């Protein structure tokens, strides 16, 4: 089962963990949280996160389904925040429950690699020096592409 959400408000880690850990079939829960990080050499005040309503949710579901097809997983939760996000605030949550840890670790990493390159979100940085859209990183493409050549 896959649950995705795109929302302005923060998520509650304890509730999400509870949701992931309900089935006795799942012996492993792996979670990842991405936060707003400071920017080197300039003072970041906040980010704004934009998305493509409809397509973004669809893309996240599709990424979740691809993970389900690769590994035997019990549950996936993907939550991404949008709007204005201050320094150190949560941006994204990915949680995976499965029978064993190996699949759960791999799937969580896969989900983040694919989310970063295939889900329509755009970050804009607001700093003391002005505003600028964040450029896509080649390293994110490289991280995502390695899943195309391996099943592990």
């Amino acid at each position, binding site marked *: 089962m896959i649950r995705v959400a795109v929302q302005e408000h923060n998520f509650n880690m304890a509730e999400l963990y509870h949701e992931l850990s309900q089935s006795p079939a799942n012996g492993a829960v792996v979670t990842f949280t*991405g936060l707003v990080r400071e920017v080197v050499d300039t003072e970041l005040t906040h980010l704004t*996160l*934009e*998305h*493509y309503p*409809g*397509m973004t949710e*669809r893309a996240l579901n599709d990424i979740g389904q691809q993970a389900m097809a690769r590994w035997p997983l019990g549950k996936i939760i993907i939550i*991404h925040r949008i709007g204005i996000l201050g320094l150190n605030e949560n*941006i*994204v949550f990915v949680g995976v429950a499965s029978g064993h840890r190996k699949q759960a670790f791999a799937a969580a990493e896969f989900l*983040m690699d694919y*989310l*970063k*390159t*295939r*889900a*329509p*979100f*755009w*970050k*804009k940085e607001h700093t003391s020096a002005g505003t600028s*859209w*964040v*450029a*896509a990183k080649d390293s*994110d493409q490289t991280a995502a592409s390695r899943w195309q050549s391996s099943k592990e």
Partner: protein
Amino acid sequence: MKVLFFALLRERLGCAELVLEQNEPTTVAKVLEQLKSRSQEWRNTLDNQELLAAVNQSFVDFDATVQKGDELAFFPPVTGG
């Protein structure tokens, strides 16, 4: 056909959404050419930016077909997560 623009592209073009009269099926690339011909500013913006395209909310290549009633979107490479 509805055409949507997001993020940097939306800001540079000063346009989030427009409607094109399109009765015959065409391709994403041809629609893009049509948009570039709107003005020098549109041409500069669309030429100088790496673009991704989606039709009806799925990623497509630029040779993909689009037709009347479709929702076509252009946007920069994604930077979420």
